[in-house]
């Protein structure tokens, strides 16, 4: 990505509702120009509130938001260089598609052929050319959303804000719209900030993702970094599937850590220098975990267990081994051929193993 100046700078912003509800807590973020940025987190973590503060519908209790270098305190929503696509789309039901898209220009005095041209252009962009005369109740959910998109894009905002833009669509359409949004963002080159609670959506669309938990931003990283190098138990657990164990650092050499892990025993991993002698989370992804009948040999971390469950999911199967003492480990196996035979049956004693380098050490 280009290292352009941030188009949005969120500077230590806190939002409280009343005395007790802290919806957003001391968030600092920089969103770069031209970026597809996702705000990801579980329900109620404050994503919408943060987005609404960018749009100007909520006012930060503390901190400042800068858009394009300008502080936004006191700037009304209708004066901000951002536009929003609402979760409910909020397409005006009493106006035609054309009038909906034209609305944002009419109210700011863009009229005549220029307005007409821009509306047609925007409708074409979202593949709704020829739908201008329809009323919103003659459109499908997906089409209404495109109207909402066109209506915002036609304003040529510096930043487009989207709140759960795909949540009202069915699974197939959602997938198509994910690609559509990415294509659109490339075409128009506008910064997109998308709120979602769907991690696969964020991973597949965004250039960078901020993961939020209870009002705070836990990690900001590109999708692959977020997946492979989560910085906390929360992010590790929230993004994808994860085998998560608790452990203690018993010995820290400059580049190797010796850990005592509950349910697994003592393992040695290439460790980040400077890890304190403390409790840490020890994690490995199921798809990096292998299952074998025999001990896999040296260089691997291996542990024996009893097959507790096998979940067939078409493209892959999940095998869960019971390690004793309530500890479990899951492994994902690709069903890469139609004749892949099941490697295990419930009750079998098998080895789960993974490369030491694939072990994640989480101190937060």
């Amino acid at each position, binding site marked *: 990505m280009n290292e352009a100046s941030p188009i949005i700078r969120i500077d230590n912003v806190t939002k409280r509702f009343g005395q007790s509800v802290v919806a957003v807590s001391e968030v600092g973020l920089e969103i770069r120009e031209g970026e597809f940025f996702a705000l990801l987190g579980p329900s109620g973590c404050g994503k919408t509130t943060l987005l609404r503060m960018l749009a100007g519908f909520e006012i930060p209790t503390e901190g400042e938001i800068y858009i394009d270098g300008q502080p936004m305190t006191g700037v009304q929503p209708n004066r901000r260089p951002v536009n929003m696509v609402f979760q409910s789309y*909020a397409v005006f039901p009493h106006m035609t598609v054309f009038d909906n898209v034209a609305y944002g220009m009419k109210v700011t005095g863009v009229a005549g052929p220029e307005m007409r041209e821009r509306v047609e252009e925007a409708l074409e962009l979202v593949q709704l050319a020829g739908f201008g005369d329809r009323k919103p109740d003659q459109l499908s959910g997906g089409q209404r959303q495109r109207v909402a998109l066109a209506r915002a894009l036609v304003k040529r905002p510096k930043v487009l804000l989207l709140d759960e833009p795909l949540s009202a669509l069915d699974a197939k359409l959602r997938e198509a719209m994910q690609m559509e949004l990415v294509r659109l963002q490339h075409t128009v080159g506008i910064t997109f900030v998308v709120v979602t609670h769907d991690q696969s959506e964020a991973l597949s669309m965004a250039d960078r993702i901020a993961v939020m938990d209870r009002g705070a931003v836990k990690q900001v990283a590109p999708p692959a970094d977020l997946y492979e190098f989560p910085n906390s138990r929360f992010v590790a657990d929230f993004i994808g599937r994860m085998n998560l164990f608790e452990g203690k650092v018993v010995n820290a050499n400059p580049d190797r850590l010796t850990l005592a892990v509950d349910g697994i025993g003592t393992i040695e991993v290439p460790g980040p220098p400077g890890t304190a002698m403390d409790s840490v989370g020890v994690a490995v992804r199921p798809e990096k975990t292998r299952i074998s009948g025999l001990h896999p040999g040296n260089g691997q971390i291996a542990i024996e267990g009893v097959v507790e469950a096998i979940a067939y999911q078409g493209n892959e199967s999940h095998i869960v081994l019971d390690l004793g003492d309530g500890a479990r480990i899951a492994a994902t196996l690709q069903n890469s051929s139609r004749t892949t035979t099941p490697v295990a049956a419930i009750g079998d004693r098998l080895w789960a193993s993974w490369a030491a380098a694939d072990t994640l050490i989480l101190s937060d």
Partner: protein
Amino acid sequence: METWRRNPLVFWIFLVPPTIWLAAFFLVPLGLIWVFSFGEKRGLVDIEITWSLANYVRALEPLYLQIIAKSLWMAGLTTAICLVVAFPVVFAISFAPPRWKPILLLLVILPFWTNLLIRTYALIAVLRTRGYINFTLEWFWDGGNQILTAVGLGDLQLLGASFQPLQLLYNNTAVVFGLVYVHLPFMVLPLYASMERLDKSMIEASLDLGASQARTFFSVVAPLAKPGIVSGLIITFIPAMGSFLTPNLLGGTDSQMIANVIERQFKSANDWPFGAALSFLLMYATFGALAMRSLLARGSPGTEHGA
């Protein structure tokens, strides 16, 4: 519910008493009045049904047309003022914290708990020459005079030689004021209902697209609240048009409305046939208004259903 649907007899049995009630005490008297309107006054209590249109012709005399026009104007003005006043009230309630809404709505309909006559007399106590408004004004006048005296300008009598109370009662303004006061809840409630149905993100979307608050109101809120506005206009206008107590108590000699004339026909003038004809003219006008409402409502989009 289910048994009702399966056993229509139960349904009919429940329907019979109210039907008889309506027929005996509403439709029949109404029919009688309608028949009277084609009659002629013979004696003190005798009415002869001559099926003449004389009463209707008389009702269209300039004198009465003028009163009808005046009533239309006063009721229309009342309705318009109610609309203008109700919108901010409705906004305030609609955007209030959820736990405040029922309380605020209760305050709106609180006046209904008091008899109209008592409320009107209370209004007189506020508006009359020696009422609260004039007392308050006099208090300010005294205060102003004392300040002027203190700075040595007392002798110039800048505020006049003595306090002149405002004549707030017994004129058309007082009648409209009273009508607005009485009918405001009729406007607030349907407006509130349609504001509650309105998806608030419509308003935010309009602001987000660069529209001013005023533009948002006229281009988005008002069109989407149209069903409520139309209902409010109608159910405010109709009773306002038919009011007789308020013009009677708050108005002057020239403030009588059509309902006052009708009342007089049935009482002091004892001319039931003419009163009946006037009543029915008023009713026809009402039906006309309702027909217009359904015409207007047909073209309205309502609020958006789902996403």
